[in-house]
């Protein structure tokens, strides 16, 4: 039995790097500090649907082959294609992504990552407006006002609040958890409160002074200079909304109107209506007061804002609101990135090609025109003639027409799991789990690079994405050289 500390959790964009794992017999047997999602991943990653052998479709059936044969077949497909797409990349290491980009360049294809179906509009807006932001520790140390907009961190990024925002403990701003615990207590059962407290104090002993029965009488309940306020804006009353100081329940697809109203109020303009997006203007005024009078505000937005009606317009407005707020106080904004290394995919794409996603190499240099060079659009126009999917499952989450076009052409899947994409693929190559069975680097949602550890050995013969891609790349180069020689 051995204990590994400071392990990075390869699940969500929080990229918590304080996980402690107990390993026994090349298996994770205990997870400390992680949330439920983290625990599920480390304990259960290898259970069902694990891919163990490379396969190639022969006469309609996937049959097991050697890794060499699978790599050769994959290289053949890519080298022969005119316009292949290489997609996925948000659940693997930067090192693998880097090889993927070279491969895309080599075969003159399009490389795209999952941003295209999540925070793509956010990236486009940032390119229009810019973005005032920071690392998460800055929020922890300084923010006294936290806003989650169209995001429910309580379930999508379970430790975001306790590690980085309202419940965290910073140099200048103290944790607001005591306030919340009383609030939760009023709302939910005793058991939930206890588990919440336990999570918050996971590294320390629970001080006896906070024993629940005494809670009401403890001097901890402060709402002073150093306390934090939490605002949640959402169409639904989520778990996160329940612990907020202000919950703004907004009518669906009205985010843009609400953001513009807030912008007007921040600029001291009067609103001539009583309600905006179903929210009374008086309430909005109160919220704007909180915004302009805080020392440091932070707005986190999720897919609820990015994917609701208006999309890019919404993000433009949110970025502009925060930019305007900087005339009054300090304010930052950050997208809540989902996959653990989607930020890393954007980062590596950008330093090597200049663009964060949807990069087309068909003319021999990087081109970027989302809507045209983005993978879903290419598939819908039926332009691609082969695909390589790495650590992603587009067949089950792309629009049906796009998924259909994927299956109509040679399809290669590199994945640890037998997911739907792998099931319909022509070449399937099993890979090691990045951050569990393979080391590397990932970027947190705030662009802080954090190393991924290899804590257990992958199943025999299973290689990391990086190695598989390198082998395919080498094979493609060989094929191309052979072609050149033939022509000569």
């Amino acid at each position: 039995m051995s204990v590994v500390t400071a392990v990075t959790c390869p699940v969500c964009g929080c990229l918590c790097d304080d996980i402690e794992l107990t390993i026994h017999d090349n298996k994770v047997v205990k997870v400390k500090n992680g949330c439920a999602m983290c625990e599920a991943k480390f304990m259960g990653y290898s259970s069902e649907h694990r891919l163990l052998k490379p396969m190639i479709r022969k006469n309609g059936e996937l049959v097991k082959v050697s890794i060499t044969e699978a790599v050769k077949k994959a290289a053949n497909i890519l080298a022969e294609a005119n316009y292949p797409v290489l997609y996925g990349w948000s659940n693997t290491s930067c090192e693998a992504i880097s090889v993927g980009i070279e491969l895309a360049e080599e075969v003159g294809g399009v490389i795209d990552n999952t941003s295209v179906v999540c925070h793509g509009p956010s990236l486009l807006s940032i390119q229009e407006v810019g973005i005032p932001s920071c690392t998460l520790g800055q929020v922890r140390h300084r923010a006294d006002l936290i806003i989650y907009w169209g995001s429910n961190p309580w379930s999508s990024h379970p430790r975001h609040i306790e590690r980085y925002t309202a419940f965290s403990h910073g140099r200048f701003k103290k944790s607001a958890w005591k306030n919340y615990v009383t609030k939760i207590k009023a709302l939910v059962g005793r058991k939930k409160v206890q588990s919440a407290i336990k999570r918050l104090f996971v590294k320390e002993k629970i001080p006896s002074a906070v024993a629940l029965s005494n809670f009401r009488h403890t001097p901890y309940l402060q709402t002073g200079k150093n306390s934090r306020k939490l605002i949640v804006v959402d169409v639904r009353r989520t778990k996160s909304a329940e612990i907020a100081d202000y919950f703004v329940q907004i009518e669906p697809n009205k985010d843009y109107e609400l953001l513009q109203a807030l912008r007007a109020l921040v600029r001291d303009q009067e609103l001539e209506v009583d309600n905006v997006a179903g929210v009374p203007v008086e309430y909005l005024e109160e919220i704007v007061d909180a915004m302009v009078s805080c020392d440091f505000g932070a707005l986190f937005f999720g897919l609820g804002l990015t994917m609701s009606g208006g999309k890019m317009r919404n993000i433009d407005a949110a970025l502009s609101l925060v930019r305007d707020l900087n005339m009054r106080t300090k304010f930052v904004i950050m997208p809540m990135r989902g996959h653990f290394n989607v930020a890393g995919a954007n980062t590596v794409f950008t330093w090597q090609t200049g663009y964060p996603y949807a990069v087309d190499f068909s003319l021999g240099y990087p081109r970027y025109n989302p809507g045209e060079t983005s993978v879903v659009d290419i598939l819908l126009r039926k332009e691609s003639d082969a695909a390589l999917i790495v650590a992603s499952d587009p067949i089950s989450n792309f629009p049906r027409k796009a998924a259909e076009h994927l299956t109509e052409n040679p399809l290669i899947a590199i994945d640890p799991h037998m997911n739907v994409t792998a099931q319909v693929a022509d070449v399937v190559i099993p890979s090691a789990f990045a951050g569990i069975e393979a080391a590397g680097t990932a970027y947190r949602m705030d662009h802080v690079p954090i190393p991924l550890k290899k804590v257990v050995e992958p199943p025999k013969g299973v290689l990391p994405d990086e190695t598989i891609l390198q082998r395919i790349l080498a094979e493609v180069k060989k094929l191309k050289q052979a072609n050149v020689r033939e022509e000569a």
Partner: protein
Amino acid sequence: MELLIKNGFVYDPINGVNGEKIDIAVKNGKIVEKVNECKAKKINASGMVVMPGGVDIHSHIAGGKVNSGRLLRPEDHYRDFEKKTRITRSGVGRSVPSTFTTGYRYARMGYTMVMDPAMPPLEAKHTHEELSDTPLIDKASYPLLGDWWFVLEYLKDGKIEECARHVAWMITATKGYAIKLVNPGGLEAWGFGNNVSSLDDQIPHFGVTPREIIRGLCKVNQLLGLPHTIHVHTNNLGVPGNYATALETMRCVEDLAAGGKPVIHITHCQFSAFKGDDWRTFESGAEEIANYVNACSHVTLDMGQVIFTDTTTMTADGPFQYSLHTLSGNKWVNHDVETETSTGIVPFHYKRKNYVHATQWSIGLELALLIRDPWKILMTTDHPNGGPFIAYPKIVAWLMSRKAREATLKRINPKARSRSLLQSIDRELDFSEIAIMTRAGQAKALGLNCKGHLGVGADADIAIYNFNPETTDPSRKYKAVRRVFKKAAYTIKNGQIVAKDGEVLRHVNGATFWLNVQTREPAVLTAEMQRRFKEYWTVEYENYPVSENYLAVSHPITVKADV
């Protein structure tokens, strides 16, 4: 492999060679006394200028900030791209080129070493990943330490040795090369949207002043015996009247100098040489700065020359970048880094017809020409802040030719022209002075003994330019100067020809230089430090340092310090 460069006009100021025709012999990546004439590959450099490879002391080429700049500016890339070839990777260019393109473009100009001057320690891995993807040139990076909480706290308590030990730990952990200060104290204040405006302002919550930080880190630098001095971006950068702040910054460490050696480097000095009370009364403070620098020996500077073009400004100076955003109305990125520093990015277009921009253009050249000793003033644009590095050949031409300056002066804002000191400056630099400002002086200021010269034992990093100083007058033929410096006839890196006449012949990695600073008592991981670490940062201590495998080619330099 052996190489013999024959019959060139060699400019090697460090070894006192000034245009003499001598042969340069290369073996195993180093300059040697001689090689076997029959076996060696020969380069006929007759009628050409031979210099050490170019060195750039300050150019933002890698890391989170640069990458945010790339992300922010797709419009910057659309028109300028490089296709993949059999040898090279593809990429995009203009003001924030992608990494591969950055390496190629520097190499084409005869540059072989570039320093990225602003690495947020928390994001050091990112900087190194990008540097490793920047081919053909050697490189290094300076961690931003002027607003790091550890530094502020130790200096407040007057614990200079403790401070030095932690700085040593930090430089080693981030694989950095020098101590960088940006608007010291101002960045911590920016954490709550504030700034400092003088060397004696108290930094909120920390009770130290910019003056104490500058002096403190200057002493730390000396205690540790680092090869470069502290590298300072002054307070009040970009604010009219700031030449006084620059003077005070240089003065405030005067007494720490010993033996005529520099103890401070003021970077992109043009941006800190503004006179006047506001933008209307704005004018050049270059003369005042030059007078001071001419009379002392403890300072080196680099220009931060402005080029009339569209570019992307990016510094760790968050408050300055915000003011540039409000001034220009252009899009703005801000990225504050917990416990350490900040970042701001704003696209910017320097226009010839704008009085302020044209005056800035003039200030950079005035500094370079009024400061008599070229070892003290190095050529940079603070890429991409004053303009992209691909504009260097233009600056060389301006420095070598009065005619070139006049040609530009004619086309700038009339008020700026009439006030420009350039009208009254006749000085024209020669190739030896250019070699100092673009390589020898840069390497010397950086304390890089194996760079910037062609003496036996030096790294065989060599640039050859197709210009015959015997038959051609650079002052009159300034356009030819521009042309030859744009595309070196040969760029030789570690004894290999990597580029020829603007064509990249090889894609090889350069090395990343870093300091392994060993103190007598290391800053050990005490329980106290571990506690503070947990409190100050959101990543674990184990995950913070940059391990050597992040460097494609690692070139450690051991520094033994007596603290």
